[in-house]
């Protein structure tokens, strides 16, 4: 239809009409594209807000998980230390780790009473990092990272998740160290569900140097985890704060 009209105008040498025909089509389409682009940009800002909210939710889940792990590591650390101190009053914690944070600085009282009569289970427990990187992973996989306009924040998130993944691997390696302790307990007929108090473990460590060695190993692992988790937790909290600021600035 348009072609026929244009052809008619060209044949009649009605150059004004020809120009007008082109102008209407071109300007009309350009205008429509511009409106679509504005709309897409608006959609992108909405998507950015949604992604930021989801990232904050994921980071909050990380903070909660890390805090739980930190408290658990603290509890195992103090339990193993109490056994070692009972056997050696001059026992000193290793100086290459920073002094552990006192329990009262943690969020609420640490109640691990469900473990207090199952000390074999308590000693062989280690915290494993799972992490919640679904939204960030989704942004990376879909190539949508560009949706986030604050590039400094993107860099910060990438660094945080990179460090978190490395720690996750380290924690899995640390967990492997528990295998020999577990094997020792099995070989000596101690089950995870067997009732055993701290006093029972002190007696066992006093009579068997191998078990004492495993208590020291459990203490070291708990100390290491506690130290590492404190750093990862601080990292997660700072990244969450930066995200919350970004959300606040946008609103």
């Amino acid at each position, binding site marked *: *239809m*348009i072609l026929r*009209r*244009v052809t008619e*105008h060209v044949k009649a040498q*009605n150059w004004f*009409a020809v120009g*007008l*025909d082109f102008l*209407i*089509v071109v*300007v*009309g*389409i350009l*205008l*429509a594209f511009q*409106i*679509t682009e504005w709309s897409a940009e608006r959609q992108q800002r909405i*998507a950015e807000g*949604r*992604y930021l*909210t*989801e990232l904050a*939710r*994921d980071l909050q*889940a990380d903070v909660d*998980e890390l805090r739980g792990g930190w408290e658990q590591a603290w509890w195992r650390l103090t339990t193993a230390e109490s056994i070692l101190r009972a056997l050696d009053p001059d026992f000193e914690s290793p100086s290459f780790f920073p002094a552990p944070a006192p329990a009262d600085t943690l969020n609420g009282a640490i109640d691990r009473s469900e473990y207090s009569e199952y000390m074999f289970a308590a000693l062989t427990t280690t915290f*494993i990092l*799972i992490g*919640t990187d*679904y939204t960030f*992973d*989704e*942004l990376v*996989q*879909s190539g*949508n990272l560009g949706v986030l306009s604050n590039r400094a924040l993107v860099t910060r998130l990438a660094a945080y998740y990179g460090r978190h993944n490395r720690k996750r691997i380290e924690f*899995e390696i640390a*967990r492997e160290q528990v*295998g020999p302790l*577990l*094997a020792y307990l*099995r*070989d000596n*007929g101690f*089950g*995870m*569900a067997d009732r055993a108090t701290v006093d029972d473990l002190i007696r066992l460590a006093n009579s068997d140097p191998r078990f004492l060695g495993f208590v020291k190993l459990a203490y070291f692992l708990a100390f290491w985890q506690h130290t590492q988790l404190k750093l990862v937790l601080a990292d997660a909290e700072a990244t969450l704060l930066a995200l919350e600021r970004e959300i606040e600035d946008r609103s």
Partner: protein
Amino acid sequence: MILRRVTGHVKAQNWFAVGIDFLIVVAGILIAFQITNWAAARQDNLIYQQARVRVIEEANANLQLSQDAITRLSEQQELVLGIVRGFETCCADGGAEERFIRALQPLRFIVSLELRQEAINQMLRSDAFLDNITPEDRTMLSLYARRIDRIANNSRFSDDFQLTRKQVHDNPIFKRTLAGDFTGGLLQLALTVSYEEACQDDALNQFLFDRLENAIYIVGQARGLEQASREVLISLGESPSDAPEPEYTP
């Protein structure tokens, strides 16, 4: 038609009509775009609904897997306890050796908790679903994904640990024979020593203790999986399928 009309309007200097003509072109294109967008959104929603169904199926499958594992491990626990009870009297009379060998065969398998995570991971890691999933559902599914990831991790650790333990067929008090049913893929074991000697064997008792401990641990993980799968199904508005526990034949 539009062009002729517009030309006419311009020639007649009817600028209002020219504006209307422009508006028709722009609105036409915008409506076409909008229709395309609606169709795409409808398609996205359809894909999301299909993914949601897959998550529900997966949670039901995990529920079933956890129940199967609990059944098989409970069987293993019963078999171990039966053998240990026989060992307490350590008397070969009344077919004790035959019962022991029959009970031992299924204990040679390590029961693992092979759970499924593909659909939930796809749901949480694909940008196609973010516009359709509610924040509440996403939070709840994210929690479920973390819980089952932890259970999978614990189960893997337990399986790896089990593989470091001495296997019963490596114990010199046993030999492998072609006699009997070995449809389970393993040759039948037979004692090379008397039943009275076997019940005193440290390595054998150690193996039985290992199996018992493993069963207790994996049952704990399976119960965690069962609870998490039930909770997620209820949250998604589904009633967990309480299929009867499958019959287990040692």
